[in-house]
């Protein structure tokens, strides 16, 4: 309570974060509270602002792939894909068929991994601890597959300009098959624990409702937009990598509350599994990297044995790109929403401007609007349901 003159105000300002178990990273929230009721939320971000856009202007197109991994670090493959598609559109590069199918497989595996991570940590926030361990168990299988193809679990830098870096092996396809065959049962296990659980429903139903009109007005994308009832997915609206050839549903919610966002993401995992099964059935043979002089790297085996390939590799790696002048904006459906790259090229080896449109940034801006008048515990539920990753919010 603060006393000012003859007036007693019951409002308290509480600082949450940037070090806090439930803020999913270094997010700071200033809460204007009246008892337990949140009157106003002011998010303060920038604690993980690493200057990636400025770095993008000072590094070559090839070097920038590494930074894209570290944006939304739960969905690194998808970030790589978005950047690669933007540069390929700028240069007019056609990616070989085998690489396109591998890209879809990696993107959907990454989507499942990101949603599993979200579900585990969200359930932990709300208080359901066992789900955390179950989700991470499945996620480990996916990370093992990533490590098999790229050598890294979290930041693979696997999808690059012109194709993918290394080919997948039969062992990978075997692991993928065994994962896809059993994953739907695991989703059923998670749903058994949570979906009809009275505590879960009570905590999430009618919390932080965002209507369809508001969701569009605030520029939200991804599961947040779909949970509000807008049936929109960039994989359907502006297909890339051959998504128009796969059958999948777009789950949508009705109310736009936290419970709908949970249901949408769980169903998306099922649909991703469906896409994986289709992609895996018929992976075409052929090269995994387009052969474009002075843009795409030659295969590693040739670099090690052929002097011309070695010279080509050296020239590209040290920055002798021939990217045409122009600008392009290209976005994909990341697990969190729309990840867009706006690249302005002046014909040199480095982008003139590399802008990263982050869905988490825009979705987070709707948080104060969504949580007016809710309780502090509901605020935690709302924050978790938007699914933010500070690496992408702050860049």
């Amino acid at each position, binding site marked *: 309570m603060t006393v000012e003159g003859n007036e007693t105000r019951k409002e308290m300002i509480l600082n949450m974060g940037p070090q806090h178990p439930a803020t999913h990273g270094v997010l700071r929230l200033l809460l204007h509270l009246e008892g337990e009721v949140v009157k106003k939320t002011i998010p303060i971000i920038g604690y993980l*602002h690493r200057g990636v*856009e*400025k770095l993008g202007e000072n590094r070559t197109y090839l070097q920038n792939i590494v930074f894209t991994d570290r944006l939304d670090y739960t969905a690194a493959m998808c970030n790589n894909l978005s950047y690669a598609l933007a540069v390929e559109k700028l240069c007019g590069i056609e990616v070989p068929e085998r690489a396109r199918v591998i890209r879809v497989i990696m993107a959907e595996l990454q989507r499942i991994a990101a949603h599993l991570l979200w579900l585990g940590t969200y359930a932990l926030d709300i208080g359901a601890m066992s789900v955390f361990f179950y989700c991470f168990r499945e996620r480990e299988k996916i990370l093992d597959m990533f490590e098999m193809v790229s050598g890294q679990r979290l930041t693979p830098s696997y999808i690059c300009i012109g194709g993918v870096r290394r080919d997948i092996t039969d062992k990978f396809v075997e692991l993928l098959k065994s994962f896809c065959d059993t994953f739907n049962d695991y989703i059923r296990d998670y749903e058994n624990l949570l979906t009809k659980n009275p505590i879960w429903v009570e905590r999430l139903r009618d919390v932080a409702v965002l209507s369809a009109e508001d969701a569009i*007005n*605030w520029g939200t994308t991804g599961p947040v937009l779909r949970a509000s009832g807008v049936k929109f997915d960039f994989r359907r609206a502006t297909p890339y990598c051959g998504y128009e050839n796969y059958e999948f549903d777009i789950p949508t919610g009705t109310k736009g509350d936290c419970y709908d966002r949970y249901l949408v993401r769980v169903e998306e995992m099922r649909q991703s599994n469906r896409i994986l099964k289709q992609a895996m059935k018929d992976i075409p043979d052929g090269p995994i990297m387009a052969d474009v002089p002075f843009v795409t790297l030659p295969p590693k085996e040739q670099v090690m044995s052929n002097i011309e390939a070695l010279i080509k590799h050296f020239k590209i790696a040290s920055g002798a790109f021939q990217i045409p002048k122009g600008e392009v904006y290209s976005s994909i459906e990341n697990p969190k929403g729309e990840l867009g790259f706006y690249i302005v090229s002046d014909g040199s080896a480095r982008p003139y*401007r590399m802008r990263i449109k982050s869905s988490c940034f825009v979705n987070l*801006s709707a948080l104060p609007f969504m949580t007016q008048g809710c309780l502090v515990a509901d605020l935690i539920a709302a924050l978790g349901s938007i699914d933010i990753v500070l690496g992408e919010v702050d860049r």
Partner: protein
Amino acid sequence: MNRQEIIDRIQEKASSLTMGTSQGIDCPEVVVDKQHLIEFMKFLKEDEALSFDLISDVTAVDYPARTPRFDVVYHIFSIKNGQRIRVRVPVGDGDGVESVTCVWRGAEWLEREVYDMFGVTFYNHPDLRRILMEEDFKYHPLRKDFPLEGIEE
């Protein structure tokens, strides 16, 4: 509606508000003068056929050798048509442009970031202050004359 139809519609209904239209590699581009910005943005959103309702991005590009120095670039998406449009507004150094938060609320934080990184002012913005850097940071990092490794203070 395809990309050419979008350009045709804009030229038919709002050519007095634009300074030029063209087809980019990925989407139609329109250059708009800052005096007509709000009117044009409202037209893009409210026109039945165009219906550009989802603000994708607001950013800026710095061309220090040119006057006006900055290009504030808007990317807006139409859920109905599945098409994107790029709107470019030239703005001088030290100058500003009207905020489009009255058209799309989602532009609020995006414009704050442009202000923080480039120093472009947005008039009638509900809360224009720095968002990524500290409140008392003196420079605008994404300007071309700001060094990558920062300025020692």
